[in-house]
């Protein structure tokens, strides 16, 4: 089981790293969206400090959603996906491997570059740490949930717009608690632990439930 998981993971990572622009465009999209807000709303430090957590989270949501289309699309086009469905291995495991690869390529870079973005918004050091931790817990949930939507909209015309309509409502709890953790960390007496507990619960629940759901969605889309 583990070797199958690692094999798919390795394959997806290798393929993506041979076409690095795809990975970089997601990251640049994130950076540009976050940088646009101060130009639009003004650059007072107090205002930015207030807006920062939400803006970074919304940008992360949009960036990971834009990248979702690529999760299955290339494999769908060249027929690899059919082979994965026919393989004698549990499909949810293969899907989980693809999701993990997808997160390593789109979610993890966002977590790493987030401190830089947070500094644009004049956030304190503690808030920056909280933001990184919240993103590290939250972005995998985005990839997991998004995989279901990506599988459902596979090969449809206008799939990208439709995908956002299906998936963004489901992203809302992650956004609320992810941004909430960062906002709360600014207040000295407030405790961020409940937020992390909830984000962790989302992640565990997603890890268990999302791969089978995405696998079922793939079977529906491919039959």
């Amino acid at each position, binding site marked *: 089981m583990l070797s199958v998981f690692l094999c798919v993971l390795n394959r997806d990572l290798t393929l993506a790293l041979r076409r690095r622009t795809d990975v970089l465009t997601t990251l640049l999209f994130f950076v540009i969206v976050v940088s646009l807000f101060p130009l639009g709303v003004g650059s007072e430090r107090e205002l930015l400090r207030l807006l920062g957590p939400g803006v970074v989270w919304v940008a992360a949501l949009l960036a990971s959603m834009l990248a979702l289309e690529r999760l299955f699309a290339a494999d769908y086009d060249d027929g690899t996906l059919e082979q994965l469905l026919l393989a004698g291995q549990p499909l949810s495991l293969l899907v989980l491997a693809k999701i993990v690869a997808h997160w390593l390529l789109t979610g993890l870079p966002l977590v790493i570059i987030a401190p830089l973005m947070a500094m644009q918004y004049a956030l304190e050091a503690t808030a920056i740490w909280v933001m990184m931790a919240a993103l590290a817990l939250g972005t995998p949930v985005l990839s997991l949930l998004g995989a279901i939507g990506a599988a459902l909209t596979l090969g449809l015309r206008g799939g990208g717009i439709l995908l956002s309509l299906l998936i963004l409502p489901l992203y*809302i709890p992650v956004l609320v608690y992810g941004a909430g953790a960062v906002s709360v960390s600014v207040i000295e007496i407030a405790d961020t632990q409940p937020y992390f507990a909830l984000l962790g619960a989302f992640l565990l629940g997603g890890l268990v439930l999302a791969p089978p759901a995405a696998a079922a969605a793939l079977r529906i889309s491919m039959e």
Partner: protein
Amino acid sequence: MKINWFKYAAPTAFYPLAGRLVPVLAVAAAALVLFALYWGFFETPERLGGTNPQKEYYRIIFIHVPAAWMSMWLYLVLAAWSAVGLVFNTRLSFMMTNAVAPTGAIFTFLALWTGAFWGRPSWGTYWDWDPRLTSELILFFLYIGFMALHSAIDDSRRADRAAALLAIVGLVMLPIIYWSINCPDPNNCAALHQRSSLTDIESNILTAMLVMTLGFWLYSFAAAFARLRNIILLREQDSAWVRTMVDAAGAGGPANAGGGDALDANRRGVSA
């Protein structure tokens, strides 16, 4: 006596049954709604609440609360039929999901809309990011997403199954919506909405509200069945029983001929 539980699972058998039920349900729904409106306007106190009562404008509760209840309940119905469809692979279950979704979306919209009108006099604002308003809005998006996904897929079998799976995935949001409304501990929930309490409400208000809910419920049945009949005809248009029925209706007189022509036109459109 042996009951055949699956007799009405066949569209052929359900179509005439729905046809007989729709007028009955519709009339009963209208009667109950009218009664509830009368009771709500004339038999209830002028104020709601104790220390800081709401004046006449509280009467929007008779639409708002039943609509909000129905919006959640119908999503549960939608998800349940989706699950039945995916498990037993019955055509009628999927048709039922498609028939229920628009009604659910309408009730969700109604709850939001009446809520805005109620919020203006009581809170001083049409919209606030109160957890209940937000979660009801998410519910609305879930309904829209279901219908959008279904209509985006041309192959009806794939559309049915994909939308059903989405409805079940969306079910994870329902507890969040439910508990944002019925918060377990009001001290932990910063919300404009008061805690809902059916027990301390004035009995005439409660009567009007519950009768209205029943009326909305029957209306949902009537609307869903009426829509279901159309969906059955569209989906089964190539089957023998629909052809015979339409031909008979066409021969019956000019008043009924339109149905057959429309179906023929639709059929040509599909095959073209």
